[in-house]
């Protein structure tokens, strides 16, 4: 392929923020008529590279060439006029303006956007509705349609299918392919390996701010990408860890660590009942918006429910505040770690936080005892603290571990994990699942929701499926393959099973 068909080329780009080096030598070559994946663990420099390409930051070194000409963008607007447009996970739509006003704000033609929305399957959308009154997936599509309306030569999609239901993701895949057919290029960023393998013609892998390889679509390219992302040694270790099968627990007797009975909360939770036993990992599978988030929040005490009861070790709980749940030994690891962490404070303060809940703990701190507790939690979770003691220096995966470390340090019976591995690199993902199994083996009860169905089998002993705000299926992990889960998650009856 000649140089002329290179729509975008990144050569040796470097970027640092104060003393943190985000990129050392990033390289990227995107040809016309291809879908090009951009892969890398959290902290590898992907998002910095994207921001440099789209004009949010200026590079410290290196070059960017668009269609062979060296360019340097000072704003997203400049990048857009050069034919480079990006769509992020959070729709770039102002909530208090209408759709039409948002289009006007960005200088997008309403008719063109309408046309592309139709291609994406959204017809007859009232543009005079306030953005904040529209459902989230619709906003994603509007954002994408707006990007398409400016006919970019290079379309950059950053985690665009995250938290989207399957049918919408399919439409986006179709659009991506369509865009490629028109001779343009799409840079596709995603943590879902299956997507990347399916869509991308080639993929560039970043590690520690450096481009470490470019793979072509081929059989086995997934493993090659993972190996490149992790570095050879770590990849081997991770592979070894993940090949240990989840140990199947014998049927439990004795009291449930957590029991939910008839939980109802309009509009999404209708009648949820299940039991969770000590020593087991219970997986929750569900499509978007089936009430799983509300369920977890209710059990954790941060949302009220209308009817029903929650029991911990047989005792009914009155949950008005997370403190009540925590006192009953129920703790939550939320999906969005930004919600749970103190970005400006140190790792130690983050881990020690729950200790100061009661007024009697407002007095002088026993520093030595605290240090011991905190250090042992850090060691247990193998949190990589080389970058410093400030929390924000840690990678996403390590930050998520800090959330878990917090509960390890303060003690719990029941751990609620809501999509704990969302947006985390593969190596850390596996570590977290191994940890979850260890915690269960040590006697804790774990309730685990993950948006990636294959991972239920990796970590859980049993699984329940949530649909329409109800538990519609329950099965041991041996039956919880992706197809079965998916069927139940859509409200379909599971396939007939052989009678055991």
């Amino acid at each position, binding site marked *: 392929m000649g140089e002329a068909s290179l729509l975008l080329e990144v050569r040796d780009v470097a970027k640092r923020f*104060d*003393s943190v080096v985000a990129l050392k030598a990033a390289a990227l070559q995107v040809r016309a008529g291809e879908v090009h994946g951009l892969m890398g663990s959290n902290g590898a420099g992907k998002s910095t590279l994207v921001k440099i390409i789209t004009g949010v930051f200026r590079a410290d070194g290196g070059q960017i060439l668009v269609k062979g000409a060296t360019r340097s963008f000072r704003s997203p607007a400049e990048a857009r006029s050069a034919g480079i447009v990006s769509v992020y996970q959070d729709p770039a739509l102002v909530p208090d303006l209408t759709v039409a006003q948002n289009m006007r704000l960005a200088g997008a033609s309403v008719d063109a956007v309408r046309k592309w929305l139709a291609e994406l399957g959204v017809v007859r959308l009232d543009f005079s509705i306030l953005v904040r009154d529209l459902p989230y997936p619709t906003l994603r599509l509007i954002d994408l349609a707006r990007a398409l309306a400016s006919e970019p030569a290079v379309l950059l999609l950053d985690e665009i299918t995250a938290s989207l239901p399957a049918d919408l993701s399919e439409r986006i895949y179709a659009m991506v392919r369509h865009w490629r057919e028109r001779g343009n290029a799409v840079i596709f960023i995603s943590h879902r390996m299956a997507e990347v393998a399916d869509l991308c013609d080639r993929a560039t892998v970043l590690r520690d701010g450096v481009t470490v390889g470019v793979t072509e679509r081929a059989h086995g390219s997934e493993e090659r990408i993972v190996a490149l992302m992790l570095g050879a040694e770590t990849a081997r270790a991770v592979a070894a860890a993940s090949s240990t099968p989840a140990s199947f627990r014998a049927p439990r007797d004795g009291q449930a660590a957590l029991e939910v009975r008839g939980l109802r909360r309009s509009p999404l939770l209708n009648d949820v009942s299940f039991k969770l036993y000590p020593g087991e990992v219970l997986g929750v599978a569900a499509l978007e918006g089936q009430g799983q988030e509300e369920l977890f929040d209710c059990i*954790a005490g*941060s949302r009220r429910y209308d009817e029903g009861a929650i029991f911990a070790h047989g005792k009914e709980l009155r949950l008005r*505040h*997370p*403190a009540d*749940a*925590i*006192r009953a030994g129920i703790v*939550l690891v*939320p999906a969005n770690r930004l*919600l*749970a*962490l*103190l*970005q*400006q*404070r140190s790792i130690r*303060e983050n881990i*020690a*936080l*729950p*200790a*100061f*809940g009661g*007024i009697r*703990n*407002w*007095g*002088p*701190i026993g*520093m030595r005892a605290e240090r011991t507790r905190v250090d042992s939690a850090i060691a247990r979770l193998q949190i990589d603290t*080389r970058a410093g003691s400030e929390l924000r220096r840690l990678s996403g995966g390590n930050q998520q571990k800090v959330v878990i470390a*917090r509960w390890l340090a303060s003690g719990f019976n029941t751990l609620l994990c809501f999509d704990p591995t969302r947006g985390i690199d593969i190596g850390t993902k596996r570590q977290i699942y191994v940890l979850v199994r260890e915690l269960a083996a040590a006697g804790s009860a774990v309730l685990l929701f993950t948006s990636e169905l294959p991972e239920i089998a990796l970590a859980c002993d049993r699984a329940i499926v949530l649909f329409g705000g109800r538990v519609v299926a329950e099965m041991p992990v041996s039956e919880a393959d992706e197809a079965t889960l998916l069927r139940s998650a859509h409200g379909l009856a599971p396939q007939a099973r052989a009678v055991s």
Partner: protein
Amino acid sequence: MTERAKTTFSHVAPVLSGRGVMSLLRSQTLIALILLLAAFVAGIEAARPGTVNALWASNMVLFAAPLGIIAAGQTLVMLTGGIDLSVASVATASAYIMATHSGLGGLPCVLYGLAVGLVVGLINGVGIALLRVQPLVMTLGTGLMTEGMLVVYSQKMMADAPHVPKFIEDLGAGKFLGGIPNDLLLWAPIAILIIFVLRRTGYGRLLYAVGDNSEACTLAGIRVWRVLLVNYVICSLLAATAGLVIVGGADTADLSLADFYLLPSVAAVIIGGTSIFGGRGGYAGTIVGALILTVLNSILTLLDAPEPIRQILYGAIILLLAAAYTRLTD
């Protein structure tokens, strides 16, 4: 092993470059602030040789103490991401009410003054902590309310004229041992206590945590409203205390006694390194900030310029300092 050693070394090398000195300064802002203070002091001595001596220094501390005490409360509040615009009114009201009750004797009249701080602090706390009103608006309102009530009160109290008791005058203007200001006896323990609370107690940790991310605190089982409520009460009490010191150093208890202190109380905290968004900072920097502003004020007084010019210069320099500080730490 070698990988770990490599990483530690790579942290050291950049420090030795010029860039490194800047980032060292950034992380040791206290040193930078003290250097700035020293620069101001040196500037005064250079402009008017002989000015800087023990008497001058003790006067600086004397004048800085009330500001330091108000700014202590403001520091606590700004650490949680809030602000208290009612501190000036509370200080004035506390001084006035104390003065009009001075006939009751030493302790009772002081208690009356402090009671003002308690009441206003509670109102602020209820509004901000329980009803989630924005601190700016809430304290603005209570400040107006307090000021207005004071005006009405002062007109009704024509009979009982305000009188500043001797021991308050001693506190606000006197010195002992030939030069140490009396109000330092009040400021120093407060300062030590506040620094200890911020660094070594659960309450201090909570202030930083709430200022950084109050949602995260709730999820971790903290009842945030308790912390905020107590905090605003403490801030108002500190303002009330400062009012007693201010009136000791002033000629009379008039109705705009502490008006001047509002802007410097916020400025001292910002210059001292506490972010207005919360989660970061401390009181040590505020102390130096208060000293810097006091010295600055005295420089401007020495200049013999008319009042308005001094006002403009004061404001402009605060802007410069705050801007420099914000740029350095971003």
